[in-house]
């Protein structure tokens, strides 16, 4: 199952990269670029929400920090885009560290409130400071090359996706995060340091978001607090993740695609009813939580016996670290006697 997912993902990426060969309509390209961006935002949100169990209502703040950092460096300091983007990523990481240390010690509910308050504070800051252009926002030097941004966004999100896949589904990191999510105290007795893991997850969630913000800034050439620091970024990411399936990485991808597709169609054909979108978003989350708490993909996996397909057949075999094998052998002998006597319970 897991290997199938990797193959499908690689296929999807290849498919996406050749799309511009067939589609030259810049409008469509722009839609696709934004869709890809939302996939990235959703999976980044899921790292903290699904795997670690912490709802970061300030997710959008990192998007804005990345956007503004990149913008300010490009406009005020004349840095080239890539350099500014990189610096923006570093700045976002530092902000995540600074915000994470105090807030991650709090329990889930308090964390949600704290990050919410933080994101509102940052929005206020952007409105007040002159360097950010206040409510009027900032204009960036224009690069009108939809193809450039399409591939940039695709590259960023693809890298993020595979990095996350490796860290969260393959390496122990993801499972450790889930342990913290399930029972922080119990996890400690097994050798896990919750604060360190949570902060790592927080930074891991923030950096791609900041990078996407930077790319967005250069792409759209105009940012202001209303567009980049509003709660709409966090809200939509939340819906996408909950709808798709928390803690599954694929779920948020599916959720992002579906919700974004819906939004685009909705706004294209029902632009008179834009406000209806808000209602639908809210209804989707509420209904999802009640009827489909594991989200679309999450429900699909649990139906199929879940747990990512760790097969027993991989285990049986002579390849074993001999030193550890001896220890285990001794224990094995001892305990096997007990179990044999019991005869299976």
């Amino acid at each position, binding site marked *: 199952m897991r290997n199938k997912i990797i193959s499908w993902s690689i296929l999807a990426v290849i498919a996406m990269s050749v799309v511009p060969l067939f589609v030259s309509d810049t409008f469509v390209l722009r839609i696709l670029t934004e869709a890809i961006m939302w996939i990235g935002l959703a999976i980044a949100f899921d790292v903290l929400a699904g795997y670690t169990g912490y709802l970061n209502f300030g997710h959008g703040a990192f998007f804005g920090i990345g956007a503004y950092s990149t913008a300010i460096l490009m406009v005020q300091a004349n840095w080239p885009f890539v350099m500014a983007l990189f610096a923006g990523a570093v700045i976002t990481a530092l902000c995540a560290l600074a915000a994470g240390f105090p807030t991650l010690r709090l329990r889930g509910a308090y964390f949600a409130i704290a990050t919410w308050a933080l994101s509102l504070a940052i929005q206020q800051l952007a409105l007040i400071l002159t360097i950010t252009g206040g409510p009027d926002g900032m204009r960036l030097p224009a690069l009108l090359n939809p193809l450039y941004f399409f591939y940039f966004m695709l590259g960023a999100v693809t890298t993020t996706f595979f990095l996350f896949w490796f860290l969260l589904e393959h390496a*122990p990191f993801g499972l450790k995060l889930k342990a913290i999510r*399930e029972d922080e105290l119990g996890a400690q007795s097994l050798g896990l340091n919750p604060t360190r893991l949570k902060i790592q997850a927080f930074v891991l969630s923030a950096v791609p978001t900041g990078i996407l913000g930077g790319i967005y800034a250069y792409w759209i050439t105009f940012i202001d607090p209303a567009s980049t620091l509003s709660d709409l970024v966090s809200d939509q990411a939340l819906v996408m993740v909950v709808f798709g399936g928390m803690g599954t990485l694929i779920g948020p991808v599916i959720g992002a695609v579906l919700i974004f597709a819906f939004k685009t169609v909705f706004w294209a054909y029902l632009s008179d009813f834009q406000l209806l979108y808000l209602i639908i978003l809210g209804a989707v989350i509420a209904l999802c939580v009640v009827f489909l708490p594991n989200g679309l993909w999450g429900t699909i996996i649990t139906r199929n016996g879940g747990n990512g397909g*760790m097969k027993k057949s991989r*285990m049986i075999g002579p390849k074993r670290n001999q030193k*550890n094998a001896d220890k285990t052998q001794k224990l094995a002998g001892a*305990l096997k006697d007990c179990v044999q006597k019991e005869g299976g319970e």
Partner: protein
Amino acid sequence: MATPLLELKSVTKTFGGLTANNQISFKVQTGEIVGLIGPNGAGKTTLFNVISGYYAPSYGQILLNGKDISSKPPYELAGLGIGRTFQVVKPFPGLSVLENVLIASFLRYPKRSHAEKHAWDILELTGLADRAKVSAAGLTLAGRKRLEIGKALALEPTFLLLDEVVAGLNPTEVDLTIELILKLRDQGVTILIVEHIMRVIMRICDRLVVLNFGEKIAEGTPEEISNNPSVIEAYLGDSAA
């Protein structure tokens, strides 16, 4: 006298005005099984929490192989070889049985493939292999107790803290757990066990430490303790002494 594996020196733990543990001192030698007993509310689980790093002692020291571990957090102690079970079992409900043990295996086997092999071994040994993919929340109580022990074992501890591991099990299951504990001791694991069921205590413990109202009131072999007047009084009241 060899350095004891675990030594408590005047360990005291207070919460505001309440003294849960008061000047408790005792030693546990390598290879022993020591029982920690006492009436409810005597402070046994608090002491466990102090030893396993969840609380820092308000006063006093805890030494592991002569080194002070008093203020170390639980995750460091796991690395140093201390494993524990919880009185109210703590499985990770949203994860499978295998994943539960896997997380513990990561401590000694950071590489995933090795950890998985190790986890399967533990599952075979604790008889949970057939339920490996089941969600931990779906296990019976006996299964969950078994999982709890399995997770602690996966840490490959040298010192194991067992907190009422047989509470709620039927007599057959209790006997099997006793066997398991004895085998563990034979393999070189030192054990400190909190238990209420006298049958278990008398059978497996080399020595007992008795707590009452936060203080250590007696220490000795099971025979000595069962004849100790203050112990009898603590459990049964004045009239029985």
